[in-house]
């Protein structure tokens, strides 16, 4: 029997759909953890990035924080959280939030910084106070860029949450990590399919949110799957 047939059988086995170790519970754990970690990171990081971008201060810091963040190996940060916070959900959650903060700071900074200055002046000219202009003019204009950052981040969190199985937390990564330990290729492959599928669904769902946050005329240039790489030169300023 080929590995593919065995994987199909694995998915058809009712035992894999039941209880703590079943697919529905692992999926729910994964979704819940990723959602809460992304939300927490956004709540912590957005005010910082938005205000730095609004006042145009500490630009280098706001941009380089994500360059530094990228140098941190997520696997290492997850494991580091174990001696600090024990094993299970707590270290996983804290590590995921910590890893998710830098890109949101950078993106919300860039989004706010790039708001057309004439638009800001027009808001003042209309008699808007600073906080009103910030909330009703600048933030809506910056929203597509901010959402693009949260989208990239959310997908990254789903990916890193997979690794959290290594620090004795659940989620879909359990199938893979347990499969490694038991040398169970079928479970490894099935787990990988589940994880890849969830990551793609997350990308599409967050793309949907980004689409909603983007004004109609700008929607045409949106993509359902963001493209790898980084073609702006932000990254070059680090060196």
């Amino acid at each position: 029997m080929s590995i593919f047939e065995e994987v199909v059988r694995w998915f058809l086995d009712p035992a894999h759909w039941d209880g703590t170790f079943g697919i529905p519970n692992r999926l729910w754990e994964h979704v819940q953890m990723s959602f809460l970690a992304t939300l927490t990171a956004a709540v912590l990081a957005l005010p910082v990035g938005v205000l730095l971008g609004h006042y145009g201060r500490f630009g280098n810091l706001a941009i380089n924080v994500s360059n530094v963040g990228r140098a941190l190996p997520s696997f290492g940060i997850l494991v580091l959280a174990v001696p600090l916070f024990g094993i299970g959900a707590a270290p996983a959650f804290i590590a995921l939030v910590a890893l998710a903060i830098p890109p949101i700071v950078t993106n919300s900074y860039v989004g706010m910084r790039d708001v057309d200055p004439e638009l800001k002046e027009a808001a003042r000219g209309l008699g808007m106070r600073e906080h009103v202009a910030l909330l009703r003019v600048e933030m809506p204009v910056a929203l597509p860029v901010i959402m693009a950052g949260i989208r990239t981040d959310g997908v990254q969190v789903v990916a890193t949450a997979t690794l959290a199985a290594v620090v004795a937390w659940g989620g879909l990564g359990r199938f893979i990590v347990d499969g490694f330990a038991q040398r169970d290729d079928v479970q490894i492959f099935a787990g990988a399919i589940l994880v890849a599928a969830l990551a793609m669904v997350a990308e599409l769902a967050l793309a949907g949110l980004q689409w909603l946050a983007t004004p109609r005329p700008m929607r045409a240039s949106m993509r359902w799957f963001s493209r790898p790489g980084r073609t702006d030169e932000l990254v070059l300023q680090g060196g």
Partner: protein
Amino acid sequence: MLRLDATDPWIRWDWLGHHTDVIWQALVQHIQLTGIAVLGGLAIATPVGLLVWRWRALRNPVLSVAGILYTIPSLALFALLVPFTGLTVVTAEIGLVSYTILILVRNIVVGLDGVPAEIREAATGMGYRPAKRLLTIDIPLALPVIVAGVRLATVTTIGLVTVTALLGEGGLGQLILAGLIQDFKTPLVVGLAGSVVLAVAADLLLAGAQRLATPWRSSR
């Protein structure tokens, strides 16, 4: 079972002193795994990138598929390969090369696209043949964006190599994993710090190399 051991310090220097060879080997393997992934990725991504750049019809399909594949989390990508190539360094390297290809192809295409049309026309007008124009005009002018891709691919790979410790290889990731399994902080700290230092050093090195390769941009 794992627990918080308050008596275990973050760094035990005596352990460090007795394990310099282990740490050195892990570091060398980390650099090797990263080097193969980035150079191998570049060797495959360059022809693919040029092809996609020349044939515009290929661009959207190829870059879209790259986007979809790039969504697959690293552990899942390694796991998809394990039934075929086992818990081996081959699995690790196939996964790592795949990610660098996805990053580099896009940067090569976008970098070449960014070369101003007037410059290309001027070169053609001066009698440059396509191959010479590509090598002496297009690629040098696209270099900043291509190197940005190489830097991103390198830093990303250095982080991903630590994950491959789960496959039984993994350079400094082995130290991180050993720290977790043995509930012993020193190797964990050494592996983590080593990976960060390596990523920053590689990034600065590539940034320096790029300045040397594009002297006309030195005013920046």
